[in-house]
């Protein structure tokens, strides 16, 4: 950032902060005034609805205008226009027109409509202006500063406005907003930097501009992926904000004060997370931070939907809002980084139109779903939304969003020095998670049964969770069943030790490579050993050869299993024994193991090893403490080694005769 543009950014930021604080006064006062005048919920809803109309009607048009006009002048004029429009409310009230209720209410609707239209133009201009005010590598930090001040204003504004009502009449509050627009206009007028790049070609029809903008968004792979993801996310996420009150009331039986803590936590999450977006982006690539934030958000919402504790729910909600803000900041900044200056206004307007289309759809759709499943199921709806977000993040990691740095560099931004190392790492991690999804889903009913059995065996919910967390193995279910049947705790420990013996063998198998890792990585990798993770990782290693990505693939796979296992434990604790069993999903892991077994077969020796191990496992099923499985594995290995040794001399003799021979394994 040059000295001049740094100065200009801070002037811009200051003007925006004041303007946002003023706007939050209007956001507080306008619905209140309409309600005071009409006492009607329908009028309140109408006042909100008219603010979304301009975007749908003129959003694309305004975006095109922003790209062809002098943006700074346009923003300055929209500020002056907003000051005039908002200022008209106290003006009309002062001359006594407030008494003409119908006229005054219609005027208020008009003010909402016009100021929303002006705001679209200003927002598109702001989006397009920022790349002129800061260097590309500082866009995330600049955006996060603007968003943090916006979130702080949204929290503080209504409080200040409420306090001001003690000394001022309601219409006067709008003067604060009008004055704040004048401050913002003043700030813009002293900024020296131009907001437009000098690249404008000969003028063309406005509709041609709009078509060009839409076509650009659609043809640019990253923009297309971001727009599609934003559309999907808006539809899904809107329900969480729209139905937060229902969740708090139904799931946690909150009173008004407790409910307000959810909103405070949400704002705090945004204010605290927004400043992290810049440092995170400096350390990791766009794909890692954006998709990581999305995964985190999904996980937090999933946990929110499953947790029975109010305090934890408030914390999870706050964190999820912060994670969402980090995601939004990354995508916003990336658009500013990769889109040519001449298209910025139109790209922003497309995003706004998509948002204003999908948010009402999501709100209504979510409401209908909740009505269909019943309000009592609201927590499960939140959990399902969390799961959808996780799946969405995994799915979109396979699109251009998963390797956005390529386009970032094509656009001339500073190459991310860490991207070359971290991007493949993230891709391997996500690939591991993705590969394990079909294996993780079937364990949910199995582990959920543990969540039901453990409390019945005398464990508190906390003990149940900690047990699952620390042991992280399918052995917890037989252990809980043994406890329920009255087995002494030491026997249960022995049972877990025996059942997990095969995981020691997995460690032994990978030991020659494992010992080359740093200790903390070794411990993390070992914690991630599950049958499923080991299976998919070995398969990947056979396909692509063993390299460092295999470790991250294994960790990703383990992470997916971990999410499923811990989520299922909470699910079992909360839902109890109501889980459906008719689909026999518990059969799916068996099929997966069978599939891994088939794919591990490389010759006669391994076929016989599999048959011996399988037969022995069947025969040893009655052995105590689950000793049958490790014993069967050892038998299988022994048979495989013996067959291989017996066959080797024949193989050598055969090859001496000049024949081609495929060895046992």
């Amino acid at each position, binding site marked *: 950032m040059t000295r001049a543009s740094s100065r200009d950014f801070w002037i811009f930021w200051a003007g925006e902060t004041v303007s946002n604080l003023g706007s939050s006064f209007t956001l507080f006062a306008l619905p209140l005034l309409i309600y005071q005048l009409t006492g009607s919920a329908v009028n309140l809803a109408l006042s909100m609805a008219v603010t979304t109309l301009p975007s749908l009607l003129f959003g694309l048009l305004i975006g095109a205008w922003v790209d062809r006009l002098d943006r700074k002048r346009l923003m300055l004029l929209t500020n002056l226009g907003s000051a005039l429009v908002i200022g008209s409310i106290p003006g009309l009230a002062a001359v006594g027109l407030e008494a003409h209720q119908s006229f005054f209410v219609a005027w208020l609707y008009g003010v909402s409509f016009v100021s929303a239209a002006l705001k679209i133009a200003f927002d598109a201009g702001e989006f397009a202006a920022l790349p002129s005010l800061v260097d590309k590598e500082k866009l995330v930090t600049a955006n996060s500063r603007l968003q943090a001040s916006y979130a702080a204003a949204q929290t503080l504004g209504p409080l200040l406005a409420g306090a001001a009502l003690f000394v001022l009449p309601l219409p006067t509050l709008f003067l604060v907003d009008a004055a704040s627009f004048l401050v913002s206009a003043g700030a813009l007028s002293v900024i020296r930097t131009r907001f437009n790049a000098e690249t404008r070609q000969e003028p063309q029809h406005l509709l041609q501009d709009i078509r060009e903008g839409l076509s650009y968004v659609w043809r640019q792979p990253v923009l297309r992926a971001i727009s599609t993801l934003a559309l999907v996310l808006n539809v899904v996420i809107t329900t969480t904000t729209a139905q937060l009150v229902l969740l708090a009331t139904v799931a946690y039986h909150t009173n008004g004060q407790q409910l307000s803590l959810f909103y405070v936590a949400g704002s705090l999450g945004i204010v605290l997370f927004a400043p992290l977006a810049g440092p995170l982006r400096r350390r990791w690539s766009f794909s890692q931070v954006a998709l990581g934030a999305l995964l985190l958000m999904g996980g937090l919402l999933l946990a929110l939907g499953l947790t029975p504790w109010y305090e934890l729910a408030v914390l999870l909600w706050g964190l999820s809002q912060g994670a969402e803000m980090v995601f939004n900041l990354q995508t916003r900044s990336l658009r500013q980084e990769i889109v040519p200056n001449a298209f910025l206004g139109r790209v922003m307007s497309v995003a706004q139109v998509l948002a204003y289309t999908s948010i009402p759809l999501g709100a209504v759709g979510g409401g209908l779903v909740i009505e269909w499943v019943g309000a009592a199921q609201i927590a499960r709806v939140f959990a399902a939304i969390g799961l959808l977000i996780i799946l969405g993040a995994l799915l979109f990691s396979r699109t251009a969003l998963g390797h956005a740095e390529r386009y970032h560099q094509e656009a001339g931004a500073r190459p991310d020095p860490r991207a070359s190392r971290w991007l493949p790492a993230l891709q391997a991690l996500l690939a591991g998670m993705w590969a394990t999804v079909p294996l993780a889903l079937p364990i949910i009913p199995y582990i959920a049964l543990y969540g039901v059995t453990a409390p019945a065996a005398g464990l508190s919910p906390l003990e149940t969770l900690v047990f699952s967390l620390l042991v992280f193995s399918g052995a917890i279910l037989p252990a809980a069943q043994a406890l329920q049947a009255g087995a002494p705790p030491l026997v249960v420990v022995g049972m877990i030790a025996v059942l997990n013996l095969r995981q020691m063998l997995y460690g032994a198998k990978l030991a020659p490579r494992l010992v080359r890792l740093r200790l903390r990585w070794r411990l993390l990798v070992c914690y991630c050993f599950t049958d499923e993770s080991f299976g998919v990782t070995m398969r990947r290693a056979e396909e692509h050869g063993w390299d460092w990505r295999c470790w991250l693939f294994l960790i990703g796979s383990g992470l997916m299993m971990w999410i499923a296992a811990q989520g299922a434990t909470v699910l079992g604790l909360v839902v109890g024994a109501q889980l459906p069993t008719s689909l026999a999903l518990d059969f*799916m892991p068996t099929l997966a193991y069978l599939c891994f077994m088939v794919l591990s077969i490389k010759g006669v020796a391994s076929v016989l090893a599999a048959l011996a191990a399988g037969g022995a496992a069947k025969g040893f099923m009655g052995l105590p403490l689950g000793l049958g499985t490790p014993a069967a594995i050892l038998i299988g290995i022994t048979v495989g080694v013996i067959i291989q040794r017996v066959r080797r001399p024949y193989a050598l003799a055969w090859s001496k005769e000049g024949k081609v021979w495929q060895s046992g394994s």
Partner: protein
Amino acid sequence: MAIWVMIGLAALASNGERSLFGLLPASWQLPQRVRDALDFLPVSAFAALAFPGLLPTAAPLPSLSASKLLAAFVAAYVAWLSRGWGIKGLPFVLLVGMGVYWLDVWVS
């Protein structure tokens, strides 16, 4: 208190076993014979995990076992045919296996 001790010991046992070979010094290596033998670990481990689920010792519903066996055969065959797809073929194999199982249960 006894429960917390049990949880602690179970965590120690479980993670200790997992990490045992990861905690060994870098210079230490398993004997070559053992490493060769462990080539048979994946196939043996997955066979030992899969077979008991296919052949329950005391099957109260023989048709259910038959359905699972049939589904397992088909899934194994599909897994073998689609081995060129690698790990990406797994969801397909699971889908086919579960589909055959559900179909057979539904028909019978």
